[in-house]
């Protein structure tokens, strides 16, 4: 379970407060969605949770199953079960997708005191998962995200998620840049992972993804705060009317 309480974050380099007290709890087995205007702090929240440099936490806390996330190194957060599907996946020339994923899977296993996965088991597993996401063998061999189309990058994020089987998955605009079919593939990928022991935090601007991945709870974030929380109907309201009414209501 992911618990965020009063989380306040500013930029390290500038005196700019971005998160101004975020409260959010995602229970295991649930899917929460976050919507909100551009620049409201959604990606910042996902980065701070996964441990990226450049931010300073000035208040509040964030725990995963009771463990203080903010104290951990990024790789320790991953080993603890946190996963972020990036809004902009990074291209890494010279590092093969396959090598990268195997290193990641084994590093996480090692950190949890588990045995490494054998090369053949890994190959079998990744081929199977790649197939359902329509990622071909050639893409697996290529350097991480290099020369991938926008949609391929997003599918590659979901493949990584499927291989790493995290407890808490944060998806930052995984739907943006996807065509209708790819969106369905990604949603199927997410739905296949839905499980009692796994929580999701899905950041999106559009109702369409949420048609496929039915959220249990929808939050609206604005200016560094969660300003409204509701059921799936909240997403529909945003889709139809935009944020103006909600923002006005809160003002």
């Amino acid at each position, binding site marked *: 379970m992911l618990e965020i309480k009063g989380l306040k974050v500013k930029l390290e380099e500038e005196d700019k407060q971005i998160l101004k007290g975020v409260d959010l709890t995602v229970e295991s087995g649930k899917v929460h969605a976050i919507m909100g205007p551009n620049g409201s702090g959604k990606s910042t929240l996902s980065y701070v949770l*996964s*441990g*990226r*440099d450049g931010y300073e936490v000035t208040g509040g806390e964030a725990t995963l199953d009771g463990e203080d996330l903010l104290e951990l*190194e*990024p*790789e320790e*957060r*991953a*080993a603890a079960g946190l*996963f*972020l599907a*990036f809004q902009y*996946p*990074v291209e*890494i*020339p*010279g*590092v093969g997708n396959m*090598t*990268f*994923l195997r*290193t*990641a*899977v084994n*590093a*996480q296993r090692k*950190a949890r005191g588990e045995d490494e996965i054998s090369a053949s088991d890994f190959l079998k597993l990744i081929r199977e998962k790649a197939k359902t996401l329509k990622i071909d063998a050639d893409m697996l061999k290529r*350097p*991480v995200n290099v020369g991938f189309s926008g949609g391929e990058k997003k599918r590659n994020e979901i493949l*990584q998620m499927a291989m*790493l089987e995290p407890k808490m998955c944060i998806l930052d605009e995984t739907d943006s840049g996807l065509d209708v079919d790819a969106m369905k593939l990604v949603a199927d990928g997410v739905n296949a992972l839905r499980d009692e022991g796994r929580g999701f935090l899905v950041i999106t601007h559009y109702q369409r993804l949420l048609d496929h991945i039915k959220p249990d709870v929808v939050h609206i974030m604005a200016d560094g705060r969660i300003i409204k929380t509701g059921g799936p109907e909240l997403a529909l309201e945003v889709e139809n009317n935009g944020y103006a009414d909600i923002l006005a209501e809160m003002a």
Partner: protein
Amino acid sequence: MTALSEQKMDATEARLAAMTLPTSAPWLAEAREAALARVQAAGLPSRRDEYWKYTRPDTLVQAEALPAAVFETDEEPVFANVDRLKVVFVDGVFDADLSDPLEGEGFTIERLADVAAMDIHWAKDLYGTLETNGQDPVKRPLAALNTAYATDGVVIRVTGKVSRPVSLIYIHKSESSDAILHHVIKLEEGADLTLLENGPAAARLNKVLEVDIADNAGFHHVRAQGRDHERRAVTHIFARLGTESTFKSFTLTVNGQLTRNEAVIELTGDDAVAHVAGACLGDGDFLHDDTVFITHDAENCESRQVYKKVLRNGATGVFQGKILVKNRAQKTDGYQISQSLLLDDDSQFYAKPELEIYADDVACSHGSTSGAIDDEALFYLRSRGVPAPIATDLLTLAFLAEAVEEIEDEALAEEIVCRLEGWLTRRRKD
């Protein structure tokens, strides 16, 4: 010619006074004397020379070699798993007991010391010839010094396609050894040879390799310079390429206090291809200098220079690379990249890329960069659970990949990658 500075003359005289020209058959004695005259005319390099702006030549020039501790390791040496003809030198002296018999299919191989006593030998036309050509337009007196005084090395003539690499192994045993090695390789039309070199050789090494590649012949070269921390080396490769011939050379350098590797390549026949590449890993008291001079003097030739350096703890990297395209060398395709990955703020990289083009229909590009590990990539890897030290190593290997990819033979490339991984693992801060 301008007169040499007094300082330079003194330094040159001091070095020469400590040496005597080896006795050789007349043809070789003549080559040696001519080389000695080149040294005397040019003087040995000093730190004032433009060509030695970033690398101090003093320890390579001075009469006495500084001692270098022998690096003890029980690790299996590089290329151990490759089927090859082993030719071993200990502190710069050929060792018949440690070497395989000097014979093979499609080539002859002899020891320079033996050839030196023969009244007639084909090497007469080659020994010192490419080195002499390589003295213009930039003087390379340490190579001429080598031609004058080298007593050992191999002389290889390749007539066929040789499947088994010739592997020169340089063992360093004495802390004060000062080695001068000179190899001459002649590839006849359509011939093909892979040459491997590995080992530190000596406390101080001056090595020259002259390779004459006839039409349609191919020469592949993979070398791993020894890990001894205190060793110093200056090496020159002089290559001349005929029509549709190929020259590919890769060098891995790890450790060593001072290494200057010069490659002087002349494309003299149309449609020839020359690739030179290097990967170097330096930690602490380490200076590595790649100095390359490629002359295009024929049409439709391709040359590539790919140099990558990983530097940490104050290590220094130098790259001086020049592509000279003469006016008849139309349709030249020249590429040059030199990059360094600085793992900390103390390390430094000096690059001097140069293009000099006299033909009008050519495509030449060059680039040089130096930078740190990419933070975005590092975070991405870590966010997937890869610990920072391992993620850094993955990115470091990725940085070096373009140079290593220049090695055509997969098994040899794998040998090099293992060395790189070994070096990184030994230094991992976890």
